[in-house]
């Protein structure tokens, strides 16, 4: 049982896919200018990681090693097509905002990385837990980034005008436009890594 719970919890901190494994950066940075697309993206990636981990783990003994990358790509891209269609049907505006990054879940290194490193050699239930843990670990960082960037960049949260209601604009506060732009996302991830590695010395690089 403790092994199972550690499968879910280590990706939150010690083995976080973004800040420690450095996987899946592209989408994490590109979709986090606002909170809502960040949350939708996090849910989509988690669903794809869990299901593809499950499917590959069930098939792991029948996949010939030489063509495993192609098999993994086919499974993942079939799942992403499904996710893409669901997003277009139910949250069309968000799916427009995410644009190409939904399709790029296929090449998201977290998905391929977990398939290759875990699902190919482990039982289905463990793989589901591992996928869930890594998906949620990815989600945490996306939510933090989306929260900070939307709050300080546009003064809103989930479209709700927080700073306007607090009356900050009337006393001379201005939104920081740089936070919405691409480079600031990179610097924010750098700062998150800085904070995390200051707290946990074992993660520091020599």
């Amino acid at each position, binding site marked *: 049982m403790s092994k199972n719970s550690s499968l879910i919890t280590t990706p939150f901190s010690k083995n976080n896919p973004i800040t420690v494994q450095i996987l899946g*950066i592209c989408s994490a940075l590109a979709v986090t200018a606002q909170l809502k697309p960040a949350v939708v993206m996090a849910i989509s990636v988690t669903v794809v990681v869990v299901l593809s981990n499950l499917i590959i783990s069930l098939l792991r003994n029948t996949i010939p090693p030489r063509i495993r990358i192609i098999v993994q790509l086919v499974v993942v891209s079939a799942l992403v097509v499904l996710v893409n269609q669901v997003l277009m049907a139910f949250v069309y505006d968000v799916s427009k905002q995410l644009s190409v990054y939904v399709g790029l879940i296929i*090449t998201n290194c977290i998905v391929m990385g977990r398939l290759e490193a875990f699902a190919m050699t482990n039982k289905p239930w463990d793989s589901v837990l591992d996928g869930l843990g890594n998906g949620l670990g990815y989600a945490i960082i996306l939510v933090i980034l989306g929260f900070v960037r939307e709050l300080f960049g546009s003064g809103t949260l989930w479209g709700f005008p927080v700073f306007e209601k607090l009356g900050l604009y009337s006393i001379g506060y201005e939104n920081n436009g740089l936070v919405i732009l691409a480079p600031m996302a990179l610097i924010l991830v750098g700062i998150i890594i800085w904070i995390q590695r200051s707290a946990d010395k074992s993660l520091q690089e020599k």
Partner: protein
Amino acid sequence: MQEFFNILVKSIFIDNMIFAFFLGMCSFLAVSKTVKTSAGLGIAVTFVLLITCPVNYLLNKYVLQPGALSWVSASLANVDLSFLSLILFIAVIAAIVQIVEMVVEKFAPALYNSLGIFLPLIAVNCAIMGGSLFMQQRDYSNIGDVFAFSLGSGIGWFLAIVGIAAIREKLRYSHIPAPLKGVGITFIITGLMGIAFMSFMGIKL
């Protein structure tokens, strides 16, 4: 011809794959430790982009777009296969990477040795898939524009990774706070380079 150069310059500097869209970040961060290997990866990415984007453009234009199949027979004019584009694009990319690897190994062993492990890994590089998806989204009018776009994106990616690798080589002699060593400082430098590249944004072509 002017259109060709406009798209080329635009995709190198203004719509840079790394600094504007974060595509191919994973290998960008993992491989950029020395200039030599990053130049190898940059060339490989440019090469594969140049082949996959035009192929996917033709696929999109003659098979996937709404009404694209009307050249087969008029009864297929209403067919819309665009939901299949993700799965077909990645299949094309994986197949082409495999073919390119075999051709390069056979006819240019020196290049093959210098690219080494990077060539097969490119199949799952977001920059390649992203190139095809942006090409589909921006709806380029002819194949020349697509060539310009893929060449420009590749060169932009090459410049970015060689630039960061050169900075990281020098950084080895600097005193960086211990928690920032390695990836942390690389993220921040990439952000600063991104700000520098933003100065191209005002240029209208």
